[in-house]
């Protein structure tokens, strides 16, 4: 059964977009219990054939209208409206490229790895339908090393069945934090240099090979693969009116069943933690979004996984991390560890990032060790203001957001540390899963 019906198989108007009825409820992206979606036949049985309409001229492809009506936003951390990104690339003349960002360089985040491992075909479906919508001649899938075998196998099986309209290349991502930044991705594909570039043009104008390039997160494209089949009304049947759909959440830290969960946007944070087996220990705070995320205090009743609910707390859904900090741990010490890791992960290109993040993390480490006086806090706050917005990419900005939220949420702990005390029973313990972590 064809998912989308395009009578003349050419550029068609959005009004002729016909979708098949979609499955109700959750999960959408991930397999149900006992289901194997790595197998192409099972995947096609579950979701139906890849709905291709044929390439459209410029930005007239009906999929873009469907994505816009669906209200899909980027799931890689930006939350940018996906249709606007598609349209910006589709509007450009000539051949374009689709880049699937499955780098997920945050050591603690697992949702794109889980998606690519459990549902690789849906990600590639999304990339192929996107390629039609933005008249791309090439798809490059850049993925974390741990998911490469699954993706390579999936691409090979699909090639045999001639499923994808344009060639799909699979590229191993570089192994460091900023490898997933979109201009670093383009630079990696073109030049083998996994570092961001500067300059006024964005990948939608000049990307891979100097051509307009659509860079989307793997989960975002998997949602596109579903919208292409089931339509925008189906997509909006879960989530909230202003933020439709589902989101993959990595639940970590002091939870009994850490892992990746799919939730409707607007699901209460307490519900997410309950799904992950509940807290193991008394939570004192939550890190939401990712390492570039925001600490929020333990008073989360009424807080939901949605932009609307998190914005008043200065937080956003980011890449979908929810990390529970138990009361045995110290929020300041954990933040110092994170800041030092992130300072070390600077691409080393921009002075304010290289020197500023090092100074910020040194200040936090001295604070964590209860060696800091009030002047350290004065300097720290000034550096946070000065470093923000002065890198070629948003790496320093992410650290600034994280540290600012820590100074806010752990204000009481800050006072204790300045007085030489610490409120945590085991500040040496960490729930961050940082690679090569040293003692703070």
């Amino acid at each position, binding site marked *: 059964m064809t998912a989308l019906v395009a009578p003349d198989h050419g550029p068609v108007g959005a009004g002729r977009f016909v979708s098949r009825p979609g499955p109700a409820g959750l999960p959408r992206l991930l397999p149900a219990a006992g289901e194997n979606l790595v197998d192409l036949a099972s995947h096609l049985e579950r979701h139906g054939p890849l709905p291709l309409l044929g390439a459209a001229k410029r930005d007239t492809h009906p999929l873009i209208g469907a994505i816009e009506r669906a209200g899909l936003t980027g799931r890689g951390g930006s939350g940018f409206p996906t249709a606007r990104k598609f349209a910006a690339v589709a509007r450009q003349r000539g051949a374009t490229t689709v880049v699937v960002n499955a780098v997920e360089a945050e050591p603690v985040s697992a949702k794109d790895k889980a998606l690519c491992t459990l549902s690789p075909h849906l990600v590639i479906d999304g990339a192929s339908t996107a390629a039609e919508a933005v008249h791309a001649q090439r798809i490059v899938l850049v993925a974390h090393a741990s998911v490469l075998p699954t993706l390579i196998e999936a691409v090979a099986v699909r090639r045999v069945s001639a499923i994808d309209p344009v060639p799909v290349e699979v590229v191993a991502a570089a192994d460091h934090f900023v490898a997933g930044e979109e201009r670093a991705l383009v630079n990696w594909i073109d030049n083998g240099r996994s570092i961001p570039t500067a*300059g006024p043009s964005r990948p939608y104008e000049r990307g891979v090979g100097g051509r307009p390039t659509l860079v989307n997160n793997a989960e975002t494209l998997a949602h596109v693969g579903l919208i292409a089949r089931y339509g925008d009304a189906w997509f909006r049947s879960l989530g909230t009116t202003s933020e439709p759909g589902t989101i993959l959440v990595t639940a970590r830290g002091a939870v009994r069943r850490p892992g990746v969960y799919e939730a409707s946007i607007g699901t209460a944070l307490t519900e997410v933690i309950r799904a992950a087996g509940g807290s193991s220990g008394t939570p004192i705070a939550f890190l939401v979004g990712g390492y570039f995320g925001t600490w929020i205090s333990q008073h989360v009743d009424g807080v939901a996984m949605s932009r609307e609910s998190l914005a008043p707390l200065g937080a956003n859904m980011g890449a979908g991390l929810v990390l529970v900090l138990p009361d045995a741990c110290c929020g300041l010490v954990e933040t110092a560890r994170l800041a030092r890791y992130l300072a070390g992960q600077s691409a080393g290109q*921009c*002075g304010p990032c290289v020197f500023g993040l090092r100074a910020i993390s040194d200040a936090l480490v001295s604070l964590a060790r209860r060696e800091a006086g009030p002047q350290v806090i004065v300097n720290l706050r000034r550096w946070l203001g000065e470093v923000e917005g*002065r890198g*070629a990419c948003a790496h320093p900005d992410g650290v600034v957001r994280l540290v600012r939220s820590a100074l806010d949420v752990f204000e009481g702990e800050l006072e204790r540390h300045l007085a030489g005390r610490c409120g945590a029973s085991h500040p040496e313990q960490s729930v961050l899963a940082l690679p090569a972590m040293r003692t703070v």
Partner: protein
Amino acid sequence: MVRSKEASGSNLNPDRPGPASTAGSGGRRIVLRVDPIACDGRGICAELFPEMVSLDDWGFPIIDGSPIPPRLVGAAKRAAAACPTLAFHLDAG
């Protein structure tokens, strides 16, 4: 040392085409932009154009996005021309 660069900088009036050369007379908005990758923190921009450039604790320029007042455009151009790493730019805002 840096002062002598300023003197030579004023002779290096940029004749490159672009927003900077047209915007000064035409009244269009011109803003400063630092390419943070190219910038080495030599600090010459802050020496030549202290009105709108300050330095952070490590010697890298801090600018804001406000338009350059017409009377300062000449000084801004001299600072851009004197930047040894070509990191200091004047853009149409």
